[in-house]
């Protein structure tokens, strides 16, 4: 090969290298920047568009709510300095003074009343966060009353996700109505923010990156020492972990189970595990006259309580936690996570007992078991498909032949959710957005008998016991917490005695965190920027 011909190319390369070297020595910026990456996107900046954990948490850096939740998920004052209930149907909020929105306008009662209307307007995904029957009344510029038709013990439970927006800003930018998830025209509020929070968003490229900057006019003291935070989506698991290990990002969510030990043993990052609020459970079709996809014709085995108990007892949850979840899960006795129900420690998960399961099946008339399909997502929960495979093989040991149908969530949800309810046996995960048992008793354990009522919308197998419905209705109204908890307990006991559901576990959140960073892993999996500190 000729050395002469390629000399210009070499010279070019050398020059380019030199250029890179010179430019590379530019002084690093002094700002304390925190970089974080999530598997999904931050799809909208409008705080009423999408009720999804990561989105709500990201909005929480720039927007604030009247009442918020602290590191242990307890309700604490936010933009409302304090509140009282002069009568059971009236809440009086005393608003903070000297609070400014990022555009400089002051925060007043008008903004609260505007936000209360906007959050319940058609197109909002947060309509249920504020009681539908509540009217908001301005008392003075910094006092607002919320008047309810009926006493509601959990009226404020979801206020943490209801962020206050500026009325004047919304008027100015034609953003009076919430941006619906199915918006047909781009909306200003979906691409810009104007909150009162400790950070502002200075750049937002949907699906690519979002830049948060410290807001100098913030009313309170902020724990965080960050000047800037940059969010990127990294959807590929391996790339996300690599970016953390190489120090290019300081926080990633999630770290896949198989990578956790590698991250923990690395020099610059650790895995932070904490129990999450979502409960993974199995449900059974207890309503059809014939089980779809089963070899039992003319009847539905799941209508027999002995069959349901047999299924429960045949599944070795401890083995699932140990083998499939590699220890990163907590076996669940109830459909609700322990931090959300004070009496949950009084419940014990019925023991794994394959011999009894076999006996029960024989007693119910299926000594040789039967066939049933199991619907399962494969890209929704931690190791979802692997859990279903484990369940399949455990049930095989007692003679039940499970045909596993594992599919992506886009197809899975379309098949099993209302109106199709096309499933005989399924796995699902649920976090009560109200952080309260009523949501579970109404949505998941409520009878679907009344077609016009939203009761039991996600009760896919139609587990039905009128006793639970009656209790749920009382629980909705009862304001005496102790009595209320006892009723909730009674309802869960009823579900347990009916073997209505098979709760499996609460998966653990798995954040990959740089060793330079201190933050708070809250059980609802929300990472709040204002609790993040980074060594420089």
């Amino acid at each position, binding site marked *: 090969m000729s050395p002469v011909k390629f000399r210009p190319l070499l010279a070019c390369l050398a020059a380019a290298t030199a250029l890179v070297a010179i430019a590379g020595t530019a002084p690093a910026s002094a700002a304390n920047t925190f970089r974080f990456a999530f598997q999904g996107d931050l799809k909208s900046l409008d705080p009423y568009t999408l009720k999804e954990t990561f989105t709500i948490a990201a909005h929480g850096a720039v927007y604030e709510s009247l009442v918020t939740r602290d590191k242990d998920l307890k309700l604490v004052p936010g933009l409302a300095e304090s509140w009282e209930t002069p009568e059971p149907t009236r809440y009086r909020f005393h608003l903070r003074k000297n609070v400014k929105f990022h555009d400089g306008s002051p925060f007043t009662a008008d903004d609260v009343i505007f936000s209360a209307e906007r959050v319940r307007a058609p197109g909002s*995904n947060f309509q249920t966060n504020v009681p539908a029957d509540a009217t908001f009344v301005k008392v003075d510029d910094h006092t607002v009353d919320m008047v309810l038709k009926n006493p509601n013990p959990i009226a404020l439970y979801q206020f943490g996700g209801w962020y206050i927006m500026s009325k004047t800003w919304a008027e100015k930018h034609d953003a009076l109505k919430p941006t619906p998830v199915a918006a047909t025209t*781009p909306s200003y509020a979906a691409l810009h923010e104007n909150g009162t929070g400790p950070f502002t968003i200075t750049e937002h490229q949907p699906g690519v990156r979002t830049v948060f900057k410290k807001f100098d006019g913030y009313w309170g003291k902020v724990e965080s020492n960050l000047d800037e935070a940059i969010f990127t989506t990294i959807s590929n698991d391996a790339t996300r972990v690599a970016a953390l290990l190489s120090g*290019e990002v300081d926080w990633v969510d999630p770290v896949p189970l198989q990578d956790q030990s590698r991250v923990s043993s690395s020099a610059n990052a650790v895995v932070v595990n904490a129990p999450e609020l979502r409960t993974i459970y199995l449900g059974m079709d207890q309503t059809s006259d014939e089980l779809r996809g089963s070899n039992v014709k003319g009847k539905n085995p799941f209508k027999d309580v002995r069959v349901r108990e047999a299924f429960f007892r045949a599944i070795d949850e401890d083995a699932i936690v140990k083998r499939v979840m590699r220890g990163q899960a907590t076996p669940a006795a109830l459909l609700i996570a322990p931090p959300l129900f004070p009496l949950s420690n009084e419940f014990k998960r019925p023991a794994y007992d394959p011999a009894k399961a076999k006996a029960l099946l024989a007693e119910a008339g299926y000594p040789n078991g039967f066939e049933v399909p199991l619907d399962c997502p494969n890209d929704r929960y931690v190791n979802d498909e692997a859990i279903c495979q484990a369940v399949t093989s455990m049930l095989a040991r007692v003679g039940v032949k499970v045909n596993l149908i594992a599919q992506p969530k886009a197809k899975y949800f*379309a098949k099993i959710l209302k109106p199709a309810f096309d499933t005989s046996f399924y796995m699902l995960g649920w976090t009560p957005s109200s952080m309260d048992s009523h949501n579970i008793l109404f949505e998941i354990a409520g009878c679907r008998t009344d077609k016009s009522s939203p009761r039991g919308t*996600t009760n896919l197998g139609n587990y039905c016991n009128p006793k639970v419905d009656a209790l749920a209705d009382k629980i909705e109204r009862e304001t005496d917490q102790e009595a209320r908890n006892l009723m909730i307990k009674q309802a869960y006991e009823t579900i347990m005695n009916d073997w209505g559901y098979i709760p499996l576990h609460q998966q653990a959140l798995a954040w990959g965190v740089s060793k330079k960073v201190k933050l708070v892993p809250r059980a609802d999996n929300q990472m709040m920027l204002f609790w993040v500190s980074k060594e420089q």
Partner: protein
Amino acid sequence: MLAFILRRLLQSVGVLLAVGLIAFAMFRFAGDPVNQLVAPDTPYAERLQIRQSLGLDDPVLVQFARYAGNAMRGQFGNSYQFRQPVSTLLAERMPATLELALCATVFALTAGILMGVYSALHRDSVGAKLLQAISLVGVSLPTFLIGILLIFLFSVTLGWLPSYGRGDTVRIGWWTTGFLTVSGWKALVLPSITLGLFQMTLIMRLVRAEMLEVLRTDYIRFARARGLTTRSIHFGHALKNTLVPVITVAGLQLGSIIAFSIITETVFQWPGMGLLFVQAVQNVDVPIMAAYLLLVALIFVTINLVVDLLYTIVDPRLRLSVRRAA
């Protein structure tokens, strides 16, 4: 000639329509967009309303007709997930994909030709055998694995190059470029190699085979007999004659590099059109999927059209048959 072009254009429209219809029919099986858009405990009535406002309850043909009608007027609708016009999103992502494709092609051509020439001239040397082995790896290893391996070596272990993203970009009009910053160049290295590796091995093997062929021909032998220098024989005569098929292949491959950068973009979280498409598939974002597929079809149709026209210009025999047919 004009008739030929017109007929070709008409056929192209047919192809685009067919792609659109097939794509639309397939989206039925991608799942339900509504459940991807809202929280799991969204009231059923609200879901119904969203379905209706997206027009998902209409028959596929009605949806397709509406879509095709809008598309002809240049309107591709709004993305379900980002609530922005699809055309804006694609335009925003296009520079990233095109710059990556360009770098990958340049890399594939330069490295491929150099390696091909070397292994043809030094057929039995250890170096040539090594290159052959490497090219085998390049052909047989899947793209995502190569990407992950490169990330592991150069980002995690050595810490030289970034593992994801485009680095800092500079905006020139509507175009964003990574060519003007150091981090932009650094970010281009690994994805370009990953994306270009397959084409590189292809070109290398092509150049090697062609070169060996040409070196056996009479005019090379005559050139040698005339006493020309080896350098002028190899590069002035042999290589030049090798390049005709190489350029054809490289041009055609450019289309597939742009269209199939999907995997590379996913691995490196490269904010281009391919990544946008993958995100759209996961979220059943039909408007983006449809527009992207149409765009890819358009790229291929255009390239084929240009190639056909070039052939008629290059090859007089074709021109004659075209005229006769017309």
